[in-house]
């Protein structure tokens, strides 16, 4: 019984010292902007040639900010390819594939029509595969609250190559 109080005080002190260190580490990680990793199945039903479109329907919106690994700088003019199963059909349907460009703040927006489950989950696909960056394929799953849309921010790793 007597040992409990000092132990608790020691733990509280440790926690007090640990907390700022942890917060600092997180800030550091944010500042470093590590590149987002490709997700399992992210490339499935990918199409290389997709048109730049204003939208893939209306009613639901995928959006986000694209940044550069390391510098964290927003990347403008990146081609973001998106596809998903919708009320028009599955992921194989060409009408469910489209691309958009990021603006000066690195933001992309793609309106969709109703997202439908395919393969048992409500999810979308996002791809960036241009020579300047390491290819990235994402497969975010919609949370129950994502009825209006979802925000998917990601970080690209530059390859040092230029577009040919």
């Amino acid at each position, binding site marked *: 019984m007597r040992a409990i109080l000092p132990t608790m005080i020691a733990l509280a002190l440790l926690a007090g010292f640990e907390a700022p260190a942890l917060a600092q580490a997180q800030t550091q990680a944010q500042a470093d902007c590590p590149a987002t990793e490709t997700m399992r199945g992210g490339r499935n039903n990918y199409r290389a040639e997709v048109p730049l479109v204003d939208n893939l329907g209306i009613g639901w919106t995928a959006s986000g900010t694209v940044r550069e690994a390391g510098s964290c700088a927003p990347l403008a003019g990146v081609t973001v390819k998106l596809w998903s199963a919708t009320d028009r059909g599955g992921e*194989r349907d060409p009408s469910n594939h489209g691309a958009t460009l990021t603006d000066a703040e690195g933001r992309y927006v793609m309106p969709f029509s109703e997202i439908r489950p395919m393969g048992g989950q409500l999810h979308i696909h996002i791809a960036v595969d241009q020579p300047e960056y390491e290819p990235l394929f994402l497969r975010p799953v919609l949370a129950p609250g994502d009825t209006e849309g979802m925000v998917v921010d990601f970080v690209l790793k530059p390859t040092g190559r230029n577009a040919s």
Partner: protein
Amino acid sequence: MLRKNPWLLWVPVILAVLLAVASFATAALSPLQQGREAIWIFGALSGVLALCLFPIQPLLALPGLRRRLGNWVHPALGGTIIGLSVAHITGLWLYSPEDITDALLLQAPTPFSAWGLSGLAGLVGAALIALLRRRLRPAIRIALHLFLAGLGAFAAMMHAWLILGAMSAASKALLALATLLSLGIAIQAARSTIRARRERGVESSRRRGRPAGPPGAR
């Protein structure tokens, strides 16, 4: 009760068939089917139908129903369920080969893919045990068959439960409950069959060449 009213045996069968028809119909008529390609609908509904047949299958193995329907019905429906599972995988593979290849290689991002594979493994195992009819002692064969079939059905139900698709949560829950009840009935029946065989001494005298134990021994 059953001896006096043999028609009572049909009550669970009829209930199971009605549940199967209702569950399949709600999935087939789901608004989600609109806009899907034919091969996708075929692949998805093959799996749904296999699941809908689960509660019926154990009942068809009951001795009373075997006598009336014929011994071939239970194995035939078992083969149909496995065939439908294969059609389910094939149909979905034809629609989205990469997704299904991931699932078969256990590389899929979806947690239910491995449940589906384990389900099929259990059901195929149960079928193989049934095919080894003459090589295993009846008590062991029946116990293994029920164990593998039960395990396969459980995994397939978990697979279905985690999937967001055309089946409603209510029909999945009802099918799971009905399958559990059917399996319970089949296990009870199997136990009394095995006990009756032992009491008659069929097993002990044939297999071990010595007389059976005292009546009622298990």
